[in-house]
């Protein structure tokens, strides 16, 4: 057990960081997924991986009965998906296992949101742990083949290819597929569509891939971090998994921290760690911070009072938000939240698959409104009123959650930067407009 988990206490004795974000509790990294890397500073090769974790514990779960016991163990562990939805993993496993005929596993390592690099990091540092997870999940649901999806030109690609080659033939036929670098291409039904029809666009909520996915088969689409946790649970047990985290959000979680912090990067945290402590883990604020974006570009802005928010599903829910893809971006005081959001919204509008009207027309419209709010006085309040009425009608009307994310971001912008919105609409000068941008939005196309 201890081999799979080392704890590092990060002492907090520094004076309060120069911002509204104070650190109240000690930040603690719990290294499970990245333990091998933390010890050697190197991606774990197969020999090192096996020394650390032993063989893939499929032998401990033989046959159909064993597969059912594995799913029951995952259920007791309380593992929830790490791709953004936080869905209970065991329920998905059980749904696919109950399906008829051949079944398939799709491991999602695409990580379409530019604020997140945790999946890529995990696949680079611990490729064998991810592959162990795929083999175990395939065994649990009775799948004979699996597809590992990564973005085109993913830096994790060579590590994965090497890892698969190093392992030789696997129980489960496994291939790696590269997915176009589009925001919605890694949505689960878009992956199914891509694999079946070379069309990387979402196909709608029903039927779920668990019922009818790749080639019409019951298909398990799980995030790569989820699968790595599954591998650790199979080796160490559900009680071990629950030694850290909260009752509702057990275990550790990979979080990408970016924006105005001293050491941006990926951190493995115990779920329930306060947001302020996570920022401190990332070296603390670089400059005074006014807000944080939680959950990716389609996430929620939170004010500095969110430093006490426990980073867990229930903690996020308590603040009217969700962990989404677990990223945290710190925005300095010296930045315009409206201009930042406008730029993100223009990017999200450009990333629409242009299939559903409310997304294809609604997102450019709200991006335009937000850009107007940033750039021009709105003394009669027309733009703000129009934006609010648009935000009210767009959510829930697309085939995927893309438009809902854009609306969430825009609505939280109006809430958290309300004073700035008032200043902009009154036509008073914004000192930060035209400054450098902090949100990680891919460039290369005009925005």
């Amino acid at each position, binding site marked *: 057990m201890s081999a799979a988990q080392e704890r590092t206490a990060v002492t907090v004795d520094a004076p309060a960081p120069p911002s509204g974000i104070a650190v109240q509790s000690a930040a603690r990294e719990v290294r499970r997924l990245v333990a091998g890397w933390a010890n050697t500073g190197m991606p774990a090769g197969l020999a090192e991986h096996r020394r650390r974790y032993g063989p893939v514990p499929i032998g401990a779960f033989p046959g159909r009965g064993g597969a059912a016991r594995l799913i029951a163990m995952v259920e007791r562990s309380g593992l929830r998906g790490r791709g953004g939805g936080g869905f209970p993993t065991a329920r998905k496993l059980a749904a696919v296992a109950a399906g008829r005929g051949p079944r398939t596993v799709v491991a999602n390592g695409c990580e379409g949101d530019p604020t997140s690099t945790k999946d890529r990091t995990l696949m680079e540092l611990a490729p064998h742990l991810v592959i162990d997870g795929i083999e175990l999940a395939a065994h649990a649901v009775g799948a004979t083949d699996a597809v590992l999806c990564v973005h085109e030109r993913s830096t994790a690609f060579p590590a994965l290819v090497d890892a698969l080659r190093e392992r030789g033939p696997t129980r489960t036929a496994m291939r790696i597929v590269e997915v176009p670098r589009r925001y919605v291409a890694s949505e689960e039904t878009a992956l199914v569509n891509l694999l079946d029809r070379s069309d990387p666009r979402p196909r709608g909520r029903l039927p779920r891939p668990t019922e009818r996915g790749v080639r019409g088969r019951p298909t398990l689409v799980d995030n790569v971090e989820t699968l790595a946790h599954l591998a650790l649970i199979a080796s160490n047990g559900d009680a071990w998994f629950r030694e850290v985290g909260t009752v509702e959000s057990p275990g550790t979680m990979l979080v990408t921290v970016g924006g105005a912090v001293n050491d941006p990067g990926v951190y493995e945290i115990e779920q329930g760690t306060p947001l302020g402590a996570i920022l401190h883990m990332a070296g603390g604020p670089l400059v005074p911070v006014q807000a944080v974006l939680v959950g990716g570009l389609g996430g929620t802005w939170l004010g500095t009072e969110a430093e006490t928010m426990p980073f867990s599903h229930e903690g996020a829910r308590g603040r009217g938000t969700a962990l989404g893809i677990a990223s945290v971006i710190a925005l300095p005081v010296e930045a315009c939240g409206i201009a930042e959001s406008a730029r993100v919204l223009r990017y999200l509008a450009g990333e629409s698959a242009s299939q559903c009207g*409310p*997304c294809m027309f609604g997102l450019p419209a709200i991006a335009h409104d937000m850009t107007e709010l940033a750039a021009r006085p709105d003394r009669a309040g027309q733009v703000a009123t129009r934006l609010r009425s648009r935000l009210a009608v767009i959510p829930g009307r697309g085939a995927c959650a893309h438009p809902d994310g854009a609306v969430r971001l825009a609505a939280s912008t109006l809430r958290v930067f309300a004073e700035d919105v008032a200043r902009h609409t009154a036509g008073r000068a914004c000192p930060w407009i035209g400054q450098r941008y902090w949100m990680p939005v891919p460039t290369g196309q005009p925005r």
Partner: protein
Amino acid sequence: MSRQARRLRVEPITCHAHGICRELLPELVRLDEWGYPIVEDGPVPAVLRTAARSAVRACPTLALRLDRGH
């Protein structure tokens, strides 16, 4: 015909904003500024069931459905 509650649904990918559902069922359908339908949530009232079925049949892209349950 089942007595179970039915709900009106729009398939967002197939809907191309012809707007015929709004013409036939204004009680439950309004259009957004781009011409796409916003349907009333909740079960279709009994008095509107016939009209709802007509709207479903009239949709040129078969994007409107009456679903059971939620």
